[in-house]
């Protein structure tokens, strides 16, 4: 798989957009899921996924042919998503739960009873309880947990995505799980 992808990338480097279409086919579902898990909004996930692929295309010449492609594309998607969070912060807060352990967001508060299609989507988004917990975590922990459990990357691949040593990835993963445990079980680390 990775081998074939590297062959296709050689074509992309020559400016072949159809070859890039093959790359999109192979990775867009995974990248979309990754972005949704980081951002918690279908609309934002779509926008960031598209942006990440456009960036990948313009930066394809920085990809070395001996490299593995999936950590490379996850890296671009992660950076794009984190940038997006920073830029969209004021709006993004509306989607965050009001209090730890609650599933009510600021948006739910101001919403009236009539349901627009938009709101149906948001309800669907809220049905996924894990997503609500993830969104309350600091983004560095959210990134490692999503890469490990949703994207199912190995620790080694994660260290390539985030450009951090394996030991650091493990520590971040432990802290991320610990932070999530505190949210889900409402109990401080080691205390009663």
């Amino acid at each position, binding site marked *: 798989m990775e081998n074939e992808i590297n062959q296709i990338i050689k074509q992309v480097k020559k400016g072949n957009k159809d070859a*890039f279409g093959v790359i999109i086919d192979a990775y867009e579902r995974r990248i979309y899921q990754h972005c949704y898990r980081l951002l918690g909004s279908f609309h934002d996930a779509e926008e960031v996924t598209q942006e990440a692929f456009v960036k990948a295309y313009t930066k394809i010449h920085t990809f070395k042919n001996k490299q593995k492609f999936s950590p490379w594309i996850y890296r671009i998607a992660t950076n794009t998503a984190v940038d997006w969070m920073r830029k969209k912060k004021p709006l993004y807060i509306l989607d965050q739960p009001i209090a730890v352990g609650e599933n009510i967001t600021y948006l739910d508060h101001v919403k009236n009873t009539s349901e627009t299609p938009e709101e149906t989507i948001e309800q669907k988004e809220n049905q996924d309880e894990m997503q609500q917990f993830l969104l309350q975590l600091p983004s560095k922990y959210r990134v490692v947990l999503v890469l490990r459990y949703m994207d199912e990357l190995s620790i080694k691949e994660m260290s390539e995505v985030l450009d951090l040593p394996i030991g650091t990835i493990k520590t971040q993963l432990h802290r991320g799980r610990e932070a999530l445990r505190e949210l889900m079980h409402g109990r401080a680390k080691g205390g009663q």
Partner: protein
Amino acid sequence: MACTHGYQEKIHQYIDQEMSYNEELTFKNHLMNCENCLLHFRELNNVEKQLKNAPAISQPSTFKQDIINRLPKESKPKKFAKTIKEHPLITACAVFLVMLMTSAFIEFQSDQNVYVSNYEGIQVEGNRVIVPKGKVIHGDLTIENAIVEIQGHVNGNLTLVNSELAQTNSNISGEIVQVNRFFKWASMRLSREVTEFFQQFIYQ
């Protein structure tokens, strides 16, 4: 009460299956005797399970066409710049060859005039080059763009570039080398230039 035995990190190691068999036994032994760690372990185990069981997110539809429409149009000079960046050595060689061929072709075109490497004792009449009867030419002789008559003697090799031999009395003691086509002429030039080009590096 918090556990004071430093088992917090061990719980993560256990979950990540990074323990040896003996470490695992010690760890499990501790859990049986430490309520706090057991609770901590159960909670973390639950967190891990829920993370793994989170539903896969399916994409509403493909964005392929949208993405392709957003891709920048490439300009040719940029592509060329990229090639240089990626293959500096190959590019240098290609540029060198193109320049060489261009200059060679210009030279070739301006080289349509009759040329004789050594005029001593040789007659040139229009495009005819004649080595008269009784004359002996010492050393190699190169003639370009001419019809050549050897009535005398050449004591060496005769190289004919874009030239033909009108009369052969086999009065040539060396070899006769015929170079008629442009590319042959060019390749002869090329081998000389390339040798010189690399000699620059060798003698530097």
